């Protein structure tokens, strides 16, 4: 059986032309080492383009690599992908003649998940799915079993490593992409075969990741077999009234279609969910649920008619029949992903409404001359644009424009500065409330809060909204647009200190050396863990032993928790002690808030339906 027939047999589909091109290239790098970049719009069959050459080895018995390591940015994406790959393995085992029971048993063993929670980080097995942080820690000799510093590194070096959804590895200081770039360089030097999969990426980001000189595999205009998706119409509205929102949802549900609403913040997602939940079978999904509840919701997502979510659903969610997507304006790459959730199958039709996040109509009306939504309609040339922490206005966009001034018959170039803040900025909000903003000649504002995103990226993404449906189909146009949106972001970005220390750390990793003392951060954002518990206070008083269940934890950002910390009236810390029976967990009153710790909160602050309530 050749690879094409193999593919047909395990997927019941004909391969796309680009997938065949990908397989040829991946086959080569599996033998010789190297990189393959696959750049395909959403719902285009990227996973199969990447993994089929590895899976085909089960049939051909010509093993070029013993293992596939599939790296994803989040655990929930890992959970989804595990099932998909396990199903392919089952079909392979059936082809090889294994009995039904054996197929089930072996498929579980062949596909392993590595989160680094158990003390292994060994990356052993045939197919290993993991998150980026776990992968990095293994590679960087952190938290390995015993002192096996070289073992996980060897397991990685032997494998075909697939990095999926790499557009999600961005952060404000580009720490993560730089770290990936560093790791990629090391892996390439060691001849490790690497596959990078993404929707469109800005050119500069590709440079940081170290994949810019690879010609990406994508759909060519002359391809006859190519992924085709449904038709999507994108509309932009500053705001959707409650009535309009309800009418749009009812219409879609009456047509038998699903509705997906994506908000930029957890609070606004909860707010919308409360408004729409009575219109149909609804489900709310965001990051502030316990591991167990979130997994349950992800399982139930197919049954829901209305899904309200935050950016947790941006990638990897393959729902059929989504006929209506209502999304907050978001950075262009996220927006393309969100729109990509709509009408994913050929023949489906869908509508996307992009709205401004919590747009404030009154403020907009009262200060119209000060409002800025995008740069497109502001006439300025040769401006230097950057994001600054201004001493008067806080975190704002700064525009420096060169003006020519005449003085005593002589003309002189004088730089003038203008600032643009957003409603997420406290100073700006205060100036508006006190009616003082109109007097500030150099200050303008965006009439909504851009959080959690960079206001500059939001303004520049707004400029692209009217063409966004084209970007869904045309990867070149999408890349050009992303380069426009992220131009200043990359030009102004300064390499963070953390990256240099990580660079030195990697350089110091040697055989026969213990790893240097260094807290390598795979995620730039500090986090803490919350654990809702019934009668927590009583349990502390009675010095009760707690049965700690990792499924009940909620990982939250440290900054978020710092802001909310005082609002939790009683909070405790988890203490783990070892005695002859094993680990014993108990509680004590929480001391000063610190990142990476586990804090117990009373269960009145948690609801299975809406998550943390504070």
């Amino acid at each position, binding site marked *: 059986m050749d690879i094409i027939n193999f593919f047909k047999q395990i997927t019941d589909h004909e391969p796309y032309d680009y997938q065949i091109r990908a397989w040829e290239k991946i086959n080569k790098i599996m033998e010789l*080492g190297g990189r393959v970049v696959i750049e395909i719009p959403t719902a285009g069959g990227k996973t199969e383009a990447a993994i089929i050459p590895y899976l085909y080895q089960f049939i051909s018995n010509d093993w070029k690599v*013993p293992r596939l390591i599939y790296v994803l940015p989040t655990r929930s994406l890992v959970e989804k992908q595990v099932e998909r790959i396990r199903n392919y393995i089952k079909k392979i085992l059936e082809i090889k003649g294994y009995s039904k029971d054996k197929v089930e048993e072996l498929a579980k063993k062949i596909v392993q998940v590595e989160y680094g929670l158990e003390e292994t980080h060994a990356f052993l097995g045939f197919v290993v799915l993991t998150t980026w942080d776990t992968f990095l820690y293994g590679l960087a000799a952190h938290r390995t*079993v015993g002192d096996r510093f*070289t073992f996980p*590194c060897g397991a990685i*070096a032997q494998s075909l490593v697939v990095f999926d959804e790499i557009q999600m590895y961005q952060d404000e200081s580009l720490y993560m992409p730089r770290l990936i770039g560093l790791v990629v360089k*090391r892996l390439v030097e*060691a001849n490790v075969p690497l596959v990078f999969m993404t929707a469109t990426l800005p050119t500069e980001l590709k440079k940081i990741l170290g994949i810019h000189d690879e010609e990406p595999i994508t759909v060519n205009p002359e391809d006859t077999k190519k992924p085709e998706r449904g038709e999507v119409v994108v509309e932009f509205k500053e705001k959707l009234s409650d009535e309009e929102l309800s009418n749009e949802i009812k219409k879609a549900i009456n047509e038998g279609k699903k509705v997906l609403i994506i908000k930029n913040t957890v609070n606004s997602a909860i707010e919308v969910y409360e408004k729409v939940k009575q219109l149909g079978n609804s489900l709310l999904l965001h990051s502030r649920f316990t591991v167990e509840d979130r997994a349950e919701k992800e399982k139930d997502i197919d049954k829901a008619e209305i899904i309200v979510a935050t950016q947790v659903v941006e990638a990897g969610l393959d729902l059929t029949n989504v006929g209506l997507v209502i999304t907050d304006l978001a950075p262009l790459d996220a927006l393309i992903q969100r729109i990509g959730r709509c009408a994913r199958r050929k023949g489906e039709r869908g509508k996307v409404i992009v709205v401004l996040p919590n747009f404030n109509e009154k403020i907009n009306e009262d200060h119209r001359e000060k409002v800025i939504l995008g740069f497109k309609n502001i006439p300025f040339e040769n401006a230097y644009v950057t994001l600054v922490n201004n001493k008067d206005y806080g975190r704002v966009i700064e525009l420096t424009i060169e003006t020519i001034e005449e003085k005593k018959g002589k003309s002189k170039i004088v730089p003038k500065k203008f600032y643009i803040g957003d409603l997420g900025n406290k100073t700006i909000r205060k100036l508006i409330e006190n009616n003082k903003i109109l007097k500030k000649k150099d200050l303008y504002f965006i009439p909504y809060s851009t959080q959690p995103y960079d206001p500059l990226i939001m303004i520049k993404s707004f400029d692209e909204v009217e063409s966004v449906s084209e970007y869904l189909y045309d990867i070149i146009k999408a890349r050009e647009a992303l380069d426009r949106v992220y131009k200043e972001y990359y030009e102004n970005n300064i390499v963070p200190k953390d990256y240099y220390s990580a660079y030195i750390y990697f350089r110091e990793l*040697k055989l026969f050396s213990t790893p240097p003392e260094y807290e390598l951060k795979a995620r730039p954002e500090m986090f803490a863990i919350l654990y809702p518990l019934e009668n927590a206070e009583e349990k502390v008083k009675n010095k009760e032993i707690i049965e700690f269940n990792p499924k009940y934890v909620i990982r939250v950002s440290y900054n978020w928790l710092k802001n909310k910390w005082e609002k939790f009236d009683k909070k405790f810390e988890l203490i783990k002690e070892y005695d002859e029976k094993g680990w014993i967990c108990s509680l004590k009153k929480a001391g000063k808030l610190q990142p990476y710790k586990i804090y117990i909160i009373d269960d009145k602050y948690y609801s299975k339906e809406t998550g943390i309530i504070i």
Partner: protein
Amino acid sequence: MILGEIMEVLAFKNQSLIDHVNDMVKYWERIKYRYLKTIKRALEALNIKLDIEKVDEFMKILIKLHDIGKASKIYQRAIINDQEKLMGFRHELVSAYYTYHILLKKFGDKNLAFIGALTVMLHHEPIIMGQIRNLKKKELTAEVVLDKLKKFDGMIEDFEDLIKKLIGYSIGDIIKNDSNKDDIIRFVIEMSVRARHTPNSEKLRFIVGTLLLPLVMCDYKGAESREGKAPKFAEVLEVESYVI
């Protein structure tokens, strides 16, 4: 190739070195289909070009020699007599010395011999790294090497026959027969320094790791027939060992 019994040089209290190696070679024959090409690719990153048959031969030499340091007088005394203490003696350091010279003779490639010897030297990485920490050091320094080999007092009398049986060479054709303690100490220190300070030392973690994994798998499998509880890491290795 299954080796015949020649003597009772012990790898463990109740398993001879020959039995241990035989079991490992048998296991390697079962699993090698998955690793040969990946090892070939890894070695090419260091400009070492071997065909598949040579990769197989190379790995078999690592398997046969990884525990050859156990054919030392001190190790054999300690394994038979509980009163005799190893005092931190690490057999893999001695194994690496012989592996290097035999690989050099077989393949004529210093880089390949270097990589092979490093892999053998690291096949008990958790133990050697733990001992480095116990000595309050961060690296395999000259002081650590001296400590690890302080009890070494030469190889057993039948060593020459054992090597001939394992590799087919007479050890005298390869290195001077009376390699003394100083030669081995000097060699191990040089290996450690080179591993940490050559320009491509960052790459070595990947290449040596690639070879280490199947060697360690074979080592665990090859030790299964000895008495006693299986080490915990054997459970971790299980997912790697299915034959589909």
